[in-house]
């Protein structure tokens, strides 16, 4: 009897669920990033931010009156798994894919989406990439269905080397990067750009170490020290960055660090533990405490909702804001309709409202970039990182127009 009641209730609830009008008009965003395993901490933060953005948009009446729905797909930061998940997302009616962690994953998705759209002329899937920055994605392998919202490695390195150019005290540079496509892209860019802009700088080391396999970085630190370097450039992220910087702190290595991802999850904690105030610099698309009220308001609201991990990636906010703007301008959530609006779009970037634009030729966003150093904050700055009490202090700013680099992209447009 009990069983019968239970199954009846179950059956009724199933009928009840299907009786709700199908949410066909929702703007479905498929977020394909690591939600389990080692990189899950970073992937989860991205999902939190998308949920926050969707809820904010929905509270204000949605986009064109349509609700925004974010669905997370766990790709375990693996290219093969990612393609399975993208296919699954498409099957569930998603036409907007957002991903950002790992250029190997990004390249795979870019190729898959282009192929899918070619084979299914009515489908129109768009891939919005907020963080995979291997330059090949907007150069040789560029695609009409892909947009890059983070500055690619070449753009960042051009800006970083312009900053280094003005600092005469830098004489010997050591490069240490993870041994995969992204690390090599950064190292190659650094070598060629430094040679061009500051031929007097000596590159005393160009090291690659396996990705996420090292527990003890002190041998590498010993090597850096023996090389006599005064500056280290690294694109390490995650624990490869944290362990590197902690090992440096322990052995008293006296150099300045120029990084791509010191601000990513775990980085600030490690710098504070290594007690390296003012020694670690990062280049990225925005930091807190730039005194821009809309960004600070968002940061406060977000921090109140996600107290455990109050980390903001401005690139995600840029991505979705431009997406929503394009959908509103097109009056349609079909990528085929709103992609022309995204191309060439002008936009005030999230962190400080600086001018940005989406280049039509290769779908690369150009935006103001900031160089900042990590250390104690002045009294009027409200936002610290990871509850360390320290935060990012701006030391340089490069306008979008000064970050433009040429592209080799020959884009194939549909039709």
């Amino acid at each position, binding site marked *: 009897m009990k069983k019968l009641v239970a199954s009846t209730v179950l059956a009724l609830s199933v009928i009840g669920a299907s009786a709700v009008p199908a949410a066909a008009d929702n703007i479905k965003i498929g977020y394909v990033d690591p939600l389990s395993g080692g990189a899950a*901490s970073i992937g989860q933060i991205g999902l939190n931010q998308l949920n926050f953005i969707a809820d904010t948009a929905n509270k204000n009446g949605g986009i064109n009156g349509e609700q925004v729905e974010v669905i997370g797909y766990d790709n375990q930061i693996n290219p093969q798994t990612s393609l399975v998940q993208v296919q699954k997302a498409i099957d569930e009616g998603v036409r907007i894919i957002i991903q950002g962690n790992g250029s190997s994953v990004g390249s795979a998705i870019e190729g898959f989406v282009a192929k899918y759209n070619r084979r299914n002329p009515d489908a129109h899937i768009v891939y919005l990439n907020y963080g995979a920055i291997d330059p090949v994605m907007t150069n040789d392998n560029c695609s009409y269905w892909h947009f890059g919202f983070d500055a690619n490695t070449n753009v960042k390195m051009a800006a970083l080397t312009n900053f280094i150019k003005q600092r005469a005290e830098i004489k010997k540079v050591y490069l240490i990067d993870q041994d995969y496509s992204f690390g090599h892209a950064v190292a190659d860019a650094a070598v060629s750009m430094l040679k061009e802009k500051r031929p007097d700088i000596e590159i005393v080391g160009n090291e690659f170490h396996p990705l996420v*396999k090292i527990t003890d970085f002190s*041998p590498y630190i010993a090597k850096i020290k023996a090389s006599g370097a005064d500056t280290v450039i690294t694109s390490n992220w995650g624990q490869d960055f*944290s362990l590197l910087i902690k090992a440096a702190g322990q052995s008293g290595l006296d150099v300045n660090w120029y990084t791509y991802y010191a601000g990513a999850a775990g980085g600030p*904690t490690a710098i504070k533990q290594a007690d390296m105030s003012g020694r670690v610099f990062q280049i990225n698309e925005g930091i807190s405490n730039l005194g821009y009220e809309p960004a600070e308001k968002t940061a406060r609201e977000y921090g109140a909702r996600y107290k455990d991990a109050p980390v903001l990636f401005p690139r995600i906010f840029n991505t979705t804001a431009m997406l929503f703007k394009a959908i509103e301008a097109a009056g349609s959530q079909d990528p085929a309709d709103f992609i022309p609006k995204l191309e060439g779009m002008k936009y005030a970037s999230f962190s400080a409202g600086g001018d940005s634009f989406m280049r039509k030729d290769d779908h690369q966003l150009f935006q103001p970039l900031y160089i900042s150093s990590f250390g104690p904050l002045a009294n009027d700055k409200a936002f610290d990182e990871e509850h360390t009490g320290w935060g990012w202090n701006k030391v340089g700013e490069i306008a979008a127009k000064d970050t433009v680099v040429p592209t080799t992209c020959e884009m194939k447009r549909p039709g």
Partner: protein
Amino acid sequence: MFEILFISTINGILYGMLLFLMASGLTVIFSMMGVLNLAHASFYMLGAFFGFEITQHMGFWAGLVFAPLIVAGIGMVVERYGLRHVHRHGHVAELLFTFGLTFVIQEVVEMVWGKLPVDYRVPASLDFSAFTVFATTYPAFKMFALLVSVVIFLALLLVIRRTRIGLIVQAALSHPDMVGMLGHNVDRIFMLVFGVGVALAAVAGVIAGPVLVTQSNMAGLLGPILFVVVVVGGLGSLGGAFVASLLIGLVQTYAVAFNISLADVFGSSPLTGNVAFYLDDLWNVTVAQIAPILPYLLLVLILIFRPRGLMGTNNR
């Protein structure tokens, strides 16, 4: 040259001893119970997180004492109500059980402490540099880790080889019925041994936590290298694990220090055509680039040429 050699040696020893600290508990459990505990690294992680939590409220030294005790308690419960029942069904069941346990522990840690790294610091009383060689400072905390490691090694050796407790425990492994007849509670002995083993893992966690990154994925990152240490040293051999830890620490550190490739030794590649196209990478890769892979290469070689490990007693 001498400078980097000298510093590499110190770094290698320090890293090797840290490895031993982590692997000792695994060896104890294997040599005395015959159980290969795949969840060992998870207990190490629990130790780090309990150490962090207790340090917040009562200081580091309290953490160093209580965290291992708590973890030992958890370990004994796991042994009493889980492993003991699974044990009857043989080794495969044990392996699967401890393998599953790693996921359970990871999920629990993520629920309680989240996925981001926690700010677990070196205690102020040990936060100074012990000595300076060639302008490289060595933190006192690493010396402390080295000391703890050596003390644990000697203490374990003494207990197993020289005391009555060690005698009974060893006898319980090979002749459990006989030991039971003599009036000892074999089940309780195994439970205590498991507790001690995971407590050692927790000690390693409390000490390694501040040096490395205390995060919910730290177990998964460390797990494989521990098994390399134990297998290379000889399954169940404490002395072997000690030697293997040092060996792996030194090999890895020296390898990083030198940028030598086959091309440097034998000149540019003698191969031409398609073969050269595929093998050039191999010819030009430096020892430094493959350093972290070397321990696994060592593992494969040992398994082929000396399956019982450096100091193992049998081929089990």
